[in-house]
């Protein structure tokens, strides 16, 4: 991988993450000496077996995890120099299991920190729902009544309303059935194109890796096993292809 990228939005340099020893638990190394760049408007797919540190690496990018060593830069600045709350508005996170709060879809889209403000017009709310492929009639539906795919797309819409520059996705489709998973993949790929969003995704879905393009980072036990571009034709390194298809036939 070419180290000197033209315009890297994320620069991860020699990142390590370890948890301290506690009563009954030895110290644990989660990530060891990870370096990776993500170009603005491009995608990075994180793949690897369970427990390889993919989600932890993702969570280092919006500082939900604090690295033990190394630096993460966002837009050229170490993220430790930014207010974590501001960083997280610019770098949105979508979790594997969509978290919706009590109330309507509208309540969920408008949710914000007690001190903060979120000034969103009605038309923008509706447009954002449409943008993630949902009917804007859902706006006043009880969020608890939505299907899994709808829930996940509402959480994506909620992230989009904050106008993020990057979207972090933690296995966004693994809790969904195949048709719903495909709808979410479509939504994500469309957003990358229309909004020029940078996307970092932990995924086991070959379809998502192929369609996102960009680069692919293969992690095993906290170490980088491979870091290479996803070719235009969707030709992924044979080992990775085997891994991806092996875990999600």
């Amino acid at each position, binding site marked *: 991988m070419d180290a000197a990228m033209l315009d890297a939005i994320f620069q991860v340099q020699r990142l390590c993450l370890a948890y301290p020893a506690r009563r009954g638990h030895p110290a*644990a190394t989660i990530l060891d000496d990870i370096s990776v760049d993500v170009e603005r408007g491009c995608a990075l797919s994180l793949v690897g077996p369970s427990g390889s540190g993919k989600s932890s690496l993702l969570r280092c990018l919006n500082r939900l995890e604090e690295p033990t060593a190394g630096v993460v830069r966002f837009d050229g600045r170490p993220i*430790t120099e930014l207010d*974590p*709350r501001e960083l*997280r508005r610019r770098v949105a996170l979508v*979790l594997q299991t969509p978290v919706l709060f009590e109330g309507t879809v509208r309540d969920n889209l408008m949710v914000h*920190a007690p001190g903060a403000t979120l000034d969103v017009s009605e038309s923008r709310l509706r447009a954002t729902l449409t943008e993630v492929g949902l009917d804007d009639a859902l706006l006043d539906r009880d969020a608890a009544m939505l299907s899994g795919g709808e829930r996940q797309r509402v959480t994506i819409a909620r992230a989009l309303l904050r106008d993020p520059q990057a979207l972090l996705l933690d296995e966004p489709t693994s809790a969904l059935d195949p048709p719903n998973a495909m709808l979410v993949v479509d939504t994500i790929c469309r957003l990358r194109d229309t909004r020029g969003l940078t996307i970092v995704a932990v995924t086991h879905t070959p379809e998502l890796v192929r369609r996102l393009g960009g680069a692919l980072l293969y992690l095993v036990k906290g170490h980088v096993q491979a870091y290479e571009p996803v070719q235009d034709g969707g030709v992924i390194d044979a080992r990775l292809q085997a891994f991806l298809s092996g875990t999600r036939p």
Partner: protein
Amino acid sequence: MTSGVLGVIELSWWQLALAMLLVLVVAAISLRERLGLERDLLIGAVRTIVQLYLVGLILAAVFTAARWYWVLLILAVMAAIATHAAVSRLAKPIPGVYWIAATALTLSTAATLAYVIGMVIEPRPWWEPQYLIPIAGMILGNSMTSAALAGDRLQADLFSRRDEVEARLALGFSGREAVQPLVRAALRASMIPTVNGMMTVGVVQLPGMMTGQILAGASPLTAIRYQIVVVFMMAVATALGSLLFTRLAVGRYVTPAHQLRRYLL
């Protein structure tokens, strides 16, 4: 409080031995129903006698010595034991939990005690052990139970609702804002037994302190006045104990950079 000397029947050793027969009834039930509780029952009965006798001897000595520092020493020992008891009820360790529990219990007890002793009952001198020690004990006991209940609930919820907390963090909430709904649930869980207890106090069962005063010869009307003070005092001890404990404990789970320490869950 009127002196109980008139109405009190002094219990002899012989009478205590008769009360021990009640334990034998329990042992018989355990044997017959194969509950396997005989050993614990025996240890429990012996501990009841030894612990209460020791406490009785110490209290008698402190009452006779009538020195404020002895009274405060007793309170400090009680606070240390309550701290240990509250901490040992938590399912998982929290780093620095002894200091958290000690601070929460000491501050909540000191504040409640200062008000009740200094403003409501006003004994002379203020450290009169006959008042200070039993009242401090009741306050500590309630703070301890509520802190442990709140801590237990907070821990359980932080684990089961960790995704919800991180979803809020990811939306730009501060650490404390992100856990606030969980803190509220923990406080409610710890305070509900006390609030419910206020609804039925005296109707279902006469409270222990009131019973004691009546047995000691106090008029029921004097006893209920004390009991009313005690109920309100316990309510505030419950609220303060759990509030302080959860506030301090949350500081261990969320970082200044608004992160949830997942490895502690």
